[in-house]
């Protein structure tokens, strides 16, 4: 069993910002656009160091998406930066027509995703973005779990000729992935091996899944923890391999249960190996103002909720076995 510890906390958006600055140095084709949120998106260093490859577009996200699509014509690799809410729902038609359907190599980088945006409240706490973006043909959807993985993902998507939605967040969270993390798009990472139940987690919920693993172990339950950083294309092979061993699953994500990672995993399981499954996510409601920690508890997104769902699914598995 591996032991995951963290010495520092950092925000995933800083992983994006630092990755982008590194790309500025290593990839002369990378350009960045921001809709009046340079500080929030941690794009200030890129802007300072590569002003000739940075565009401030003002509070005009639809225009930003169209410009990004146009910039690809001629070989540039645009990274757009704004909040996840304004990166998806607000500009869905622009992304659909000018980026996804047109097959444009645009990287849509979205911060402040999910409920941990906190005090700003439900207007800004988008919990539907994974669903919207994974529905789009040609779109790749990535939701890394900590600073190191977000930085690695930012570097990886520059070399990947496809439209990408990269989702990350606002609060400082444990940094537990190794600094030399290599990011393979579409390749799930097994963080803990286990035999009783598989927990598939993405984004901020990966750390909660690691905590849940420790709690379950105290009760003699062996949970396999898999980090699904790429929601689309989904690593079906890794999912089916794990579930063939554990025979039950829990998904965990900072997103609506409807249309998120869990829905996609359930679809995969249903087609191949139907097993009992439970979902940790927001249950068809909007969020509200509060601290990230308070909101995670109120909306059922902590390790405690994962442990509960794991126990429920294990009970169902036991019943399933006697059928």
């Amino acid at each position, binding site marked *: 069993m591996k032991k995951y510890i963290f010495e520092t906390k950092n925000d995933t958006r800083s992983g994006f910002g630092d990755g982008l600055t590194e790309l500025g140095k290593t990839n002369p084709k990378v350009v960045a656009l921001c809709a009046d949120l340079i500080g929030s998106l941690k794009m200030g260093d890129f802007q300072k160091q590569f002003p000739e490859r940075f565009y401030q577009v003002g509070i*005009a996200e639809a225009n930003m998406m169209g*410009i990004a699509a146009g910039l690809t014509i001629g070989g540039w690799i645009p990274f757009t930066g704004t909040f996840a809410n304004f990166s998806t729902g607000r500009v869905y038609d622009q992304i659909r027509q000018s980026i996804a*359907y047109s097959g444009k190599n645009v990287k849509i980088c979205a911060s402040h995703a999910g409920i941990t945006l906190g005090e700003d409240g439900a207007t800004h706490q988008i919990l539907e973005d994974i669903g919207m973006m994974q529905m789009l043909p040609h779109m790749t959807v990535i939701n890394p779990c900590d600073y190191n993985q977000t930085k690695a993902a930012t570097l990886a998507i520059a070399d990947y000729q496809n439209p990408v939605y990269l989702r990350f967040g606002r609060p400082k969270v444990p940094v537990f992935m190794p600094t030399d993390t290599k990011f393979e798009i579409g390749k799930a990472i097994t963080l803990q091996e286990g035999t009783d139940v598989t927990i598939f987690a993405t984004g901020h919920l990966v750390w909660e899944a690691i905590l849940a693993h420790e709690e379950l172990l105290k009760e003699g339950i062996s949970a396999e923890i898999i980090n699904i950083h790429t929601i689309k294309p989904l690593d079906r092979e890794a999912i089916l391999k794990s579930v063939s061993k554990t025979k039950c699953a829990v998904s965990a994500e900072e997103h609506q249960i409807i249309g998120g990672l869990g829905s996609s995993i359930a679809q995969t399981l249903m087609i191949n190996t139907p097993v009992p499954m439970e979902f940790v996510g927001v249950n068809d409601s909007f969020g509200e103002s509060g601290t990230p920690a308070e909101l995670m508890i109120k909306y059922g997104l902590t390790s405690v909720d994962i442990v509960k769902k794991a126990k429920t699914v294990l009970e169902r598995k036991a019943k399933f076995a006697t059928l």
Partner: protein
Amino acid sequence: MTSYKKNDKEFLENMVSQVRRDIVRMVHQVNSGHPGGSLGCAELLVALYFEIMEHNPSFDMDGKNEDLFFLSNGHISPVWYSVLARSGYFDVKDLATFRKINSRLQGHPATEEGLEGIRIASGSLGQGLSVAIGSALSKKMNKDDKTVFVLMGDGEQQEGQVWEAAIFAAHQKVDNLIAFIDANGRQIDGDVKDVMDLGELKGLEEKYKAFGWNVLTCTNGNDFDTLIPIIRQAKDLTGNQKPTMILMVTEMGNGVDYMMGTHKWHGVAPNDEQLELALVQNESTYSDY
């Protein structure tokens, strides 16, 4: 006095006649599509592709060191497809597949099927100006001194994104960009001034001037002697720190008498008799597909 540097005016007039035939035959064949706006912009697209633009019909998506054209009002795809085919981007026989299953000539322009000449999907209105701006910025960064052209509808000016893009283009001094508005005064539900008034030609001129653009008015976009000098004038304005707008007055349905003077042929195909009537008015000059 216009000098037609590449070809004579007769060639352009003959090409327009053929393009009009292509348009009405294409929409008739599938009983769907948008003939009105297509006919109104036939002279513009013929002028751009056969007289103004330096472009390469062997087609490369990046279009480096070429003038590029984007069609924002994608519903007038018939005119674009016809002109692209007649310019050598793809076989004119492909025009017979317009809007049919398994065709590369989708109802609205798309890149998905790899149709040469198309660089972005359009149809959902209001997006083309932003895309053209991105392409123009790309050219600047690539030290490519060619020009980006984009066509929008006048009704399309009701889309908010157009004005986001207009602000940006002036702020960023996107001066390698020439935009056109097809000012035919009509949209699906009626005349633009009744549906959602933009102040007609004067209103559009004032709006774009206030947004920091050069604005030129072409009083008859269906007449090469009026249209081509204005486009040349706009070309001369590139590099002067401002984007340029050409407000181009056209007649929707131009060249087919019963389609002119009304918005009713925006998205309606002619029947067999009406097709014959349209074809009689436009001679086959470069042979039908």
